[in-house]
C-alpha cells in the first residue's frame, strides 16, 4: 500500500485522540508532507529586518525547497526560488549578503533583477529563435507564488492551493501583534544571531513539545531542578541571577501549568499561557515601562505587557514567544532529521537589557550546548527509536480529550488538545481537503 495513492490510508493515521507512528517514521509520509503540507500552507520564511536595504538577501528553505528572500529596489521583499533557470545552479550560496541591483549566476553569468526577472544573458544572439523566449527560463528566477509580510514577518505559500493568509492565520496573529507591540516603536529587529540545533527526530515531535505542559517538571527536573537546588545551596544569593529566574519556572507545579490554559485556533494554530506563563515573573527592566507608556499610554501599555503568552504555534513549523521576543523554526530535513533555528529579536526603542535577557534565555534553553535542550532531545530521539516497535503503532493524545471538542477553544493548560488540533489540520492537508 502506498500512502500517495490512498487518501483513506492517510486519513486512518489520525484518530480522535491517537495518531499512528507512521506520521513520524515513514519516509513516504515525509515526502507527502513536503508536497501537500509545506507547499500548501503559509510557511515562515524570515523577518524583513534581515534585509533592510535594497539588494539585501537571505537564503533559506521552505520544506526542502531552496529559496531566498531579497529586498527589491522598490523596497518590497520578494521570495524567489534560489535556482538559475539555465542549468539550475543556486544563485546565492551564502546565508545573507547584498547583491546590488542584480543577481549574477556564477556559472554562465546570466543576470537577474532582484524581483527575479531576467536582466541579461551573455552573447544574447545565441538565443534568437531558439524557443528560449517562450520558455520558463526567459522569465528568470521563479518567484514563490504567494508571499505576505505581516508586521515584518514574511510568510510564503508555494502553490495556488490552500486558504488566504488572513483565513489561514485568523486570530492567531494576535501573538505576533503582542510581540511587535512590545516595542515602543512598534518594530522588531532580528538581533544577536541564530542558534542552530540538529535533531535526529521528526519535526512534529518538536512542534508538539511547544505546547506539552506535562513534561517540564519531569524531563527538566535534571536541569531546571538542579539549577534551583544549586542556587539554594549557595544561600539564594540576591539579586536572583537571571539564569535562575529563567530556569526556575520550568519546574513549576502541575497546577501552575493547568491554570495557565491553552488556546486553540483554526488550521492547527494555538498557544499555551492564556492567563500566565513561565515568562510572567521576570524582574522589571528599568525604564522600559516608562517607554511603553510614552508610546502607548498607560492603559494600552499595561494591556500589552499583561499578555504573557508562553508558546504560540503557527502551524506547521513556527513557534513564537512574544514575552521574550524569540521564535523557533522547525525545519524538516527527513522523517528522522530536523534542524531547529532559534532566532531572537530586539524591541526597537526598548532597553538593551531586554535583548540581553532574550539572548540568555536562548542560550540556556535552545542552544545545542543547553542542558534544557539536552533533556528534550533525549526524549525526541528515544521516541524516534521507540516508535519502531510494531506491537503498538499508536501514540496517545487522549489527555483531556472530549468527543466533538470544538476547534477553537480555551482549555485546561495540561490538555493535549493543541496537538490534536495540529493533527486535524495536518490530515486535511495530507488528503488534499484543504481548499
Amino acid at each position, binding site marked *: 500500500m502506498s500512502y500517495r495513492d490512498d487518501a483513506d490510508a492517510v486519513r486512518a493515521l489520525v484518530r480522535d485522540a491517537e495518531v499512528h507512528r507512521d506520521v513520524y517514521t515513514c519516509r513516504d509520509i515525509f515526502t507527502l508532507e513536503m508536497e501537500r503540507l509545506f507547499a500548501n500552507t503559509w510557511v515562515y520564511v524570515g523577518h524583513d529586518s534581515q534585509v533592510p536595504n535594497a539588494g539585501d538577501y537571505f537564503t533559506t528553505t521552505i520544506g526542502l525547497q531552496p529559496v531566498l528572500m531579497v529586498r527589491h529596489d522598490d523596497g518590497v521583499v520578494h521570495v524567489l526560488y534560489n535556482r538559475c533557470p539555465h542549468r539550475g545552479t543556486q544563485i546565492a550560496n551564502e546565508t545573507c549578503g547584498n547583491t546590488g541591483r542584480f543577481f549574477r549566476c556564477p556559472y554562465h553569468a546570466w543576470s537577474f533583477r532582484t524581483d527575479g526577472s531576467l536582466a541579461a544573458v551573455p552573447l544574447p544572439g545565441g538565443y534568437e529563435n531558439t524557443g528560449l523566449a517562450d520558455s520558463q527560463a526567459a522569465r528568470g528566477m521563479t518567484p514563490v507564488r504567494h508571499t505576505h509580510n505581516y508586521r515584518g514577518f514574511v510568510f510564503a505559500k508555494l502553490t495556488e492551493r490552500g486558504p488566504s493568509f488572513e483565513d489561514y492565520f485568523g486570530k492567531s496573529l494576535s501573538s505576533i501583534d503582542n510581540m511587535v507591540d512590545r516595542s515602543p516603536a512598534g518594530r522588531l529587529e532580528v538581533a544577536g544571531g541564530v542558534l542552530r540545533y540538529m535533531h535526529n527526530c521528526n519535526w512534529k515531535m518538536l512542534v508538539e513539545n511547544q505546547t506539552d505542559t506535562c513534561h517540564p517538571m519531569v524531563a527538566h527536573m*535534571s536541569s531546571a531542578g538542579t539549577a534551583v537546588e544549586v542556587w539554594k545551596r549557595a544561600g539564594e544569593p540576591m539579586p536572583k*541571577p537571571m539564569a535562575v529566574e529563567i530556569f526556575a519556572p520550568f519546574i513549576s507545579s502541575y497546577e501552575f501549568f493547568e491554570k495557565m490554559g491553552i488556546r486553540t485556533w483554526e488550521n492547527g494554530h494555538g498557544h499555551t499561557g492564556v492567563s500566565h506563563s513561565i515568562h510572567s515573573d521576570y524582574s522589571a527592566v528599568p525604564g522600559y515601562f516608562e517607554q511603553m507608556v510614552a508610546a502607548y499610554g498607560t492603559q494600552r501599555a499595561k494591556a500589552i505587557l499583561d499578555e504573557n503568552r508562553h508558546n504560540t504555534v503557527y502551524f506547521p513549523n513556527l513557534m513564537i514567544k512574544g514575552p521574550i521576543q524569540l521564535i523557533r523554526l522547525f525545519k524538516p530535513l527527513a522523517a528522522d532529521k530536523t534542524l531547529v533555528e532559534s532566532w531572537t529579536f530586539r524591541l526597537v526603542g526598548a532597553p538593551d537589557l531586554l535583548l540581553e535577557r532574550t*539572548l540568555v534565555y536562548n*542560550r540556556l534553553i535552545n542552544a545545542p550546548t543547553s542542558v534544557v535542550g539536552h533533556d528534550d532531545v533525549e526524549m525526541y530521539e528515544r521516541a524516534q527509536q521507540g516508535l519502531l516497535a510494531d506491537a503498538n503503532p499508536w501514540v496517545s493524545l487522549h489527555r483531556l480529550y472530549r468527543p466533538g471538542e470544538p476547534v477553537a477553544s480555551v482549555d485546561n493548560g495540561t490538555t493535549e488538545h493543541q496537538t490534536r488540533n495540529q493533527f486535524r489540520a495536518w490530515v486535511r492537508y495530507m488528503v488534499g481537503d484543504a481548499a
Partner: protein
Amino acid sequence: MISREEVIAFVYREARLLDEQRFDEWLELFTEDGCYWMPLEHGQTDRRLTASLMDEDVLLLRIRVERLKGIRTYSQKPKSRCHHLLQQPQVDVFDPDASRYSVWTAMHYVETRQERQELYAAWATHDLTDVDGALRIRMKRVDLVNCDAAFGSIQLFL
C-alpha cells in the same frame, strides 16, 4: 613564581581532569569570577548583545556538573564520554607582575555516547591568573572552527 612550564602544564591538567570526569576538581580551577565562553561567531568580541553557545559563570558551570551526576538526568543514561587532544599550548602573554597569563591551544575534542562519536576542532584561549601561588582560570574561551554550523547535543566540556 609561576613558570611558563607550569602555565602549559596547567592547560594539560585541565583537559585531563575533564577526560577523567573529575568535574568537581575541574570547577575548582576557576576563579570565583571565572568564566567559560564559547562564542557563536568567528572573532566574536561582544558577549552581551551577541549570542554565544556557552557563556557561563561558576554558578552555571556548577549546575552542569551537578546535573551530570543527577539520577534523573536521562540524557546521561548512558553517560557521555569525552576526550581532549591538545597541541602544545602557546603562551601568548606571560606577565607575572600583572599575574596575567594567556595561553592559546589548538585542540580536538571527541564526545561519544552509545554508538555516536563526534569530533570538534577548536582553539582554546585560557586567561589565567595566580591565586596564592596557584594558577586559576579567569576565562576559558573556546572557538570552534565551525562555530556557525548546526550541531547536535554537546553535553560535556570542550
